[in-house]
């Protein structure tokens, strides 16, 4: 097992990894930018190294600084968390060269899954259903017109190397295509450094379903069931739950087996997530695989009782998975609300209150004197609740959020409370179009101030 792990991340996920390491008796190294000097992950790590100025490209994204920090502290593994360098095949390769274990899949698997159009082809070959699409990058307008015509409108243009909703364009007719193609290529180039885009059939109001897997280096892969993350705003997930209210046990088993087979086919050995869209007829289509720990991994941990981060660390150290597929048992229902700072800027919240009580888990880096630097993403806490069923999990979440006190900034807590009170949400009539519908009538009260921008 590793003796010391460097966590190449910040915020709540760095703390989450520190929790796992402490329970396993592994020493930790926190890295921090000058904006995070007083952050909790720095306080709770055994050692810490300042790696650069606030700008991410010169600190949390700066591979030489992170490798050097691992070298001067003698860390034998790097956990990348999510975001930042978590899906950097380059970091994984440099780690290999420096004899530091990268806690994630092999560089070739990261690279394959990182190129969305290549990943699609590989998954199709492995027997996973994918959305009809261009099966490769589309360069010219003529090419795009031909593909779009054969798919039928609407179509969606996506960045081959994209993620997080950037570089995506929905096109409803041939007239919009040329303009949308150019914009998407430009955005992809700016955001990901590679301007390649591809086309896919666009589903109007699909559900977002994803399957959590864990694989080891001995060829074992298991799935931990699905999560549903249909409540999204601008492609950013807001509420996630496990299991999905609409997946039947038979469908779960079939979907899980399909994903496990596909993961085995590409030699997947770490934690990962395969994302699908589900149409109105409950057909599932693969969209992408994330080769890292995900923000919402906690809801799966709540319903399965499996610590995904600890298992991820164990398999990275070459150990076998500590359980088999048959031993994975789901219990009850879990929900997560992502609490974001609504207009992120540096702030010092007055002493707040993080919720507790039965069935509640909060992953956060916020504490009484915490500041939220404007340099990084706006997630400040993940509030998760677990109940015997979905109704109880929702009731607990409403109670937990009502008992949450965060002062000094605007957060998404009021919006979450409104969503949780919504009839459609309570009846699990949700899709990725839910927030659009939900936000539409709620605009008029100008005095309320922070109505989320559409």
């Amino acid at each position, binding site marked *: 097992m590793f003796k010391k792990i460097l966590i190449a991340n910040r915020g709540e996920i760095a703390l989450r990894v520190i929790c796992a390491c402490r329970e396993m008796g592994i020493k930790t190294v926190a890295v921090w930018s000058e904006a995070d000097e007083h952050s909790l992950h720095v306080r709770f790590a055994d050692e810490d*190294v*300042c*790696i650069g100025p*606030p700008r991410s490209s010169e600190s949390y994204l700066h591979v*030489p600084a992170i490798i050097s920090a691992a070298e001067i502290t003698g860390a034998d593994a790097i956990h990348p968390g999510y975001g930042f360098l978590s899906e950097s095949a380059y970091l994984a390769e440099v780690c290999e060269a420096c004899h530091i274990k990268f806690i994630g899949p092999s560089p070739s698997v990261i690279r394959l899954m990182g190129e969305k159009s290549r990943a699609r082809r590989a998954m199709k070959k492995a027997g996973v259903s994918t959305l009809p699409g261009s099966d490769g990058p589309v360069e010219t307008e003529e090419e795009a017109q031909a593909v779009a015509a054969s798919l039928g409108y609407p179509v969606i243009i996506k960045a081959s190397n994209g993620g997080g909703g950037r570089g995506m364009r929905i096109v409803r007719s041939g007239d919009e295509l040329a303009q949308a193609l150019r914009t998407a290529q430009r955005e992809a180039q700016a955001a990901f450094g590679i301007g390649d885009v591809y086309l896919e059939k666009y589903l109007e109001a699909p559900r977002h379903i994803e399957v959590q897997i864990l694989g080891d280096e001995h060829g074992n892969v298991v799935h931990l069931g699905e999560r549903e993350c249909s409540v999204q705003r601008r492609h950013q997930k807001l509420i996630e739950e496990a299991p999905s209210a609409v997946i039947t046990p038979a469908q779960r088993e079939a979907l899980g087996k399909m994903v496990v087979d596909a993961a085995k086919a590409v030699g997947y050995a770490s934690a990962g997530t395969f994302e699908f869209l589900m149409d109105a007829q409950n057909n599932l289509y693969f969209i992408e695989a994330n080769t890292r720990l995900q923000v919402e991994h906690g809801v799966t941990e709540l319903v399965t009782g499996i610590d995904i981060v600890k298992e991820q660390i164990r398999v990275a150290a070459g150990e076998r998975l500590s359980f088999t597929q048959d031993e994975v048992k789901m219990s009850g229902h879990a929900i997560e609300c992502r609490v974001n700072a609504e207009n992120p800027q540096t702030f010092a919240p007055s002493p707040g209150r993080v919720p507790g009580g039965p069935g509640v888990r909060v992953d956060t880096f916020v504490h009484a004197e915490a500041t939220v630097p404007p340099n990084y993403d706006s997630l400040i806490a993940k509030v998760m609740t677990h109940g015997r069923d979905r109704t109880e999990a929702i009731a607990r979440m409403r109670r937990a959020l009502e008992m949450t006190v965060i002062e000094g900034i605007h957060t998404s807590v009021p919006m979450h409370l409104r969503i949780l009170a919504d009839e459609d949400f309570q009846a699990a009539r949700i899709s990725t179009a839910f927030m659009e519908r939900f936000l539409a009538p709620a605009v008029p009260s100008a005095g309320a101030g922070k109505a989320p921008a559409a």
Partner: protein
Amino acid sequence: MTLDEIKQILDLVREHELAEFELEQEGVKLRVRKKGQEPAVVVSPAHTLPLPLVAAPGVAAVAAPAAEAAPAAEVAESEGVELAVVKSPIVGTFYRASEPTAAPFVSVGDTVRKNQVLCLIEAMKLMNEITSEYDGEIVQVFVENGQPVQYGERLFAVRAR
């Protein structure tokens, strides 16, 4: 904006006997106003953090919100003497000499010129030469040979001239 640039601006303000001078660029706003015989300086970063200026006794710049009528620090450099601190621009291992048996690049009391190599920092098996930003005299070495250094850690104090 570097300390050197601010110093140059101060010199120009003095030389041309300006009462007030304002400059805005790349998210940094610099305002120099004469107070009595000495100019006062307000540097306000548009971002939230103080500029990564070398913080040394007698340095004339203070970070303060632009809007406030800032009680700016006096310039205490009329005689042209102040301590500047060379900080590590990277994470790595600090070496004072080019090889274990060689003499250190610099020692306390040595006179150094701008761009002269002061030390090496090894990062990812590469030796990076760290040079002086100032002409002056080395008055302190903060780190032991062979010790790891973090980003922004103090390496040398230089009495600039």
